[in-house]
C-alpha cells in the first residue's frame, strides 16, 4: 500500500492535466474544422475574414476553461508551491479528479457541438453577412453548458480547498 499512499500528487496532477488536455483537444478539433470551412468561404469572399475569425475563436474558449481549471487545481491543492513535497493523500487525489470531471467531459464535447453551430453559421454569413451577431449568440447558447461545467468544477475545487 506504500505505493498507493504516494499516489496523491500524481492523481491531483492527473486531474489538472485531464482538465487541460481534453477540452483543449476538443477546442483544437473544433477550431481546425471551422478553419477549413472558413478557408473555403474566403476563396469567394475574403472580406469576411474578420467576422469568420470571431466565429472560429468561439469554440476555442473551452480549451481556456480547461487551462483555467488546471491552474486552479494546481494552486488550490498546493502542488504549484510545494511540488514534490506536496502533502496530498490518495483519496484527496481522487476527489480532485472528481472535481475536474465536469469541465473535462463537457468542455470536450461542447466544443465539438458548438463548432457545428458555428460551421452552419459561417455558411449563413457567407450569404447574409449582416446576420453575424445572431450567429454568435446562437453559438454562445451551446457554450453556456461549458460555462456551467466550468462553474461546477470551480465550485468543487473551491469547496475542496
Amino acid at each position, binding site marked *: 500500500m506504500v505505493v498507493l499512499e504516494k499516489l496523491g500528487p500524481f492523481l491531483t496532477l492527473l486531474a489538472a492535466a485531464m482538465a487541460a488536455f481534453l477540452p483543449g483537444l476538443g477546442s483544437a478539433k473544433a477550431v481546425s474544422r471551422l478553419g477549413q470551412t472558413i478557408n473555403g468561404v474566403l476563396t469567394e469572399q475574403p*472580406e469576411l475574414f474578420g467576422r469568420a475569425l470571431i466565429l472560429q475563436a468561439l469554440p476555442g474558449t473551452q480549451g*481556456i*476553461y480547461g487551462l483555467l481549471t488546471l491552474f486552479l487545481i494546481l494552486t488550490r491543492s498546493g502542488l504549484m508551491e510545494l511540488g514534490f513535497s506536496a502533502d496530498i493523500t490518495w483519496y484527496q487525489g481522487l476527489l480532485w479528479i472528481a472535481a475536474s470531471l465536469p469541465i473535462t467531459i463537457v468542455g470536450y464535447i461542447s466544443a465539438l457541438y458548438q463548432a457545428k453551430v458555428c460551421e452552419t453559421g459561417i455558411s449563413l454569413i457567407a450569404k447574409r453577412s449582416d446576420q453575424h451577431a*445572431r450567429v454568435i449568440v446562437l453559438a454562445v447558447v451551446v457554450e453556456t453548458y461549458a460555462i456551467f461545467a*466550468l462553474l461546477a468544477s470551480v465550485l468543487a475545487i473551491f469547496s475542496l480547498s
Partner: protein
Amino acid sequence: MDKIKILGLRRDKATVLQFLQKEGVVELIDTRVLNSESSSQVDETEQRLALQKKEAEILINQTQLNSVIQTLENKYANVPQESTDKKISLDDLLMVKDREKEFLDLFDLLKLTEERKIDLAAEREQIQREQDILNDWRKVEIDLQQTSTQRTLIFLGRLEKSAVSDLEQELTELSLAETAILILESGETFDLTAIVALREHELAINQLLKQYDFNYLPIEKSGTPNQIYRSNERKIKKIDSTMIELETTMKSIAAKRLDFYLLSDYYTVTLEYYSASKIPEDSLYTFYLEGYIPRKDSRKVKQNLEDDFTVFVELIELGPEDEYPILLKNKPFAGAFQTILEMFGAPSTKEIDPTPGVAIFSFLFFGMMLSDVGYGLLLTIGCAYLLWKAKIDTSSESGQLVRMLFLCGISSTLWGFVFGGFFGDMLTVMSDNRITFPCLWFNPMDEPQKLLIWSMIFGVIHLFGGMIMKIINEIKFGKISNVFFDVIPWFLIIIGLGLLLGGSSLNISTFDVGEVGKWLALVGAAIVMLFAGREKKNIFSRLISGIGGLYGVVNYLGDILSYTRVLALVLATSVIATVINFLASMVSGGIIGWFFAVVILIGGHLLNLALSGLSAYVHSSRLQYVEFFGQFFEGGGWFFKPLKYKTKYLKIKKNDE
C-alpha cells in the same frame, strides 16, 4: 407614426421621389401586390424594360467598381489621395450624373492598365523561362533555326553525361551508325548535344532519344543562342520600363480613388431611387404612393410637398392597433444599447420599447463579467479615442457598438473597484505581495460562493424587471386581469421561496422571515393553480391547467440559475489574468527578464481583454434575449427603413455643416 398618401401628376413623379429621398423620412409601402388587379391602367412595359436594363447596367458597373476599390485599397493604400475629405454635399453626389462619363473613362483606363499589367507580366515570365534554358547554351555558336539539311535532321538538346556512350553503343547495335552525336558543350552532369541523323531515321531516332531522356531545346528562333539571349534581355528591360510606367499610371489613378467612392455611392443612391420609383401606381396622368412617416416630420413634409409640387397629400394618424414600422426613440444612454435590441428584432407596435431596461442591465452585467479596473480603463480609453479623436461615425453599426463599449468600459472599471481587480492581481504579484489592490466589497476569488448567491440575486432583479415590463404591456393591451393572475403570483412565489431558503441570513428577529416566505409562496402558488387555466370551462381541465401552470417554477429556476454564468465569467477573467501575471513574474528579473515579462504582460492582457470582452458582450446579450425578453417580449414588428441617401464610402454633409 403617420401614414402619408400622395397623389400627384405623373410628370412630377421623379422630382417628388427625389424630394422624399432627400428628406429621408418616408418608408414607402409597396402597394403593387395588394391591388395588382387594378394596376393595368397603363401599358408601360417598354418604360419598365428600359429601367430594368439601366438598373442591370449600373449593378454590373458597381460590382466591378467595388472590386476595383477593394484592389486599390489593398495594393495602393499608401498612395496619398488627392483629396481625403470623405464628407461631401448632397449636390456633389448628385452632380456625378453629369460627370459620369469622366469617371467611367478613368475607370476604363484603370481596367485597361490592369489588363496590360497582367499581360506583360505573363509575357515576361515566358521570356524569363526561355532565358533560363538559353543560359546554358550561350557559348554554342549555332543558328538555332538551322534544324535540317537536305538529307539530315539536327536535334539539339541536353543529354545526361552517362547516357552518351550508351546511346552511341545502341545506335551501332540498331544499325543506325550513320548518326553523329556532337557534343557542343560539356556541363557538370549533362552535355549539350547536337544529334545529326539521316532523314529516313527520324522516327527511330526520336524513339531512342525519348528512352534516353533527351531534353530537346524548345526554342526555334534565328540567331545563335547568345544573340537570342541578348535580344530577350532587351525585351525584358523594355517590359520592365513599361511596367514602371503602368505602375505610375495606376498610382495616379489610385490618388483619385475618392472619385471611385463617389461614383459607387452615386450608384447605390440611384439604385435605391430606381427600386423606389417602381413602387408608385401610375395611371395615364397621375401617380399614387403611400408611405409611413414619423409624426414629428409629417406636417412639415406635407407642407413642403404641397408648396413645391402639384400634389394632393393626405396624412392619417396611426394608432396602436395599426401596423407600422418601429422607429426607436431613446435618450443617449439607453440609445447606446439600442444595437442589442436591433440585433434581436423589432418589438410590435403595441408593446413597450424595452431598450431602457436592456441598457441598464447590459451595463450592469457586462461590467460585472469583465470587472477589472485595468481592462475597463483600456476599453474606455480605446473607445473614447475612436469616438472623439478618430471621429467614427456613430450612426454606423460599428460606431454604435463603440459607443456601447465605451459605457461598458466605464461599468467594468466601476465593478473592478468593487471586486478589487487591476489586470487581475498584477500589483500584488509584481510587487512581491507588498501592495494589494483594494476592493470595495469582496474579492470573488476568495469568496466565490458569495458571488454565486449575488449573481442569482441580480438575476432575480433582472427577471423582476422583465416582469414589470410584462405588467406595463398587459396594461397597454388592456388585460389587467392577466397582471393579477399571471405576473403578481410569480412575484409572490419567487420572493417567498427566496425568503424561505435564504431568509435566515437576513438576521431579522422581529418576525419569522421563513414563515412569511412560506405563506407568500403558498398564496402565489394557489393563485396560479386556480387561475392559470381560467379560460377553460370544465372544472377538471381547469385544475389540470393550473397544476401545469405551476410547472412554470422550473422555468424560473432555470432562468435564475442561468445567471450563475456571471460568477463563472468573473472567475475566468481574473484567473486568466492571474495566469498571465504568474508567467510574467516567473521570467522577470534582470533587463532581459523584465523585457520578456513586459512583453508577456502586454500581449497576455490584451488577449484576455479581447476574449473576456467578447464573452462579456455575448453573454450579457444572451441574458437579455433569453431570460429578460422571455418574460414579456412579443416582437413581430419591423424597423423603420425610410427611402434616403444611404452611402457606403462617403458621408453626406448635413445642411448646417
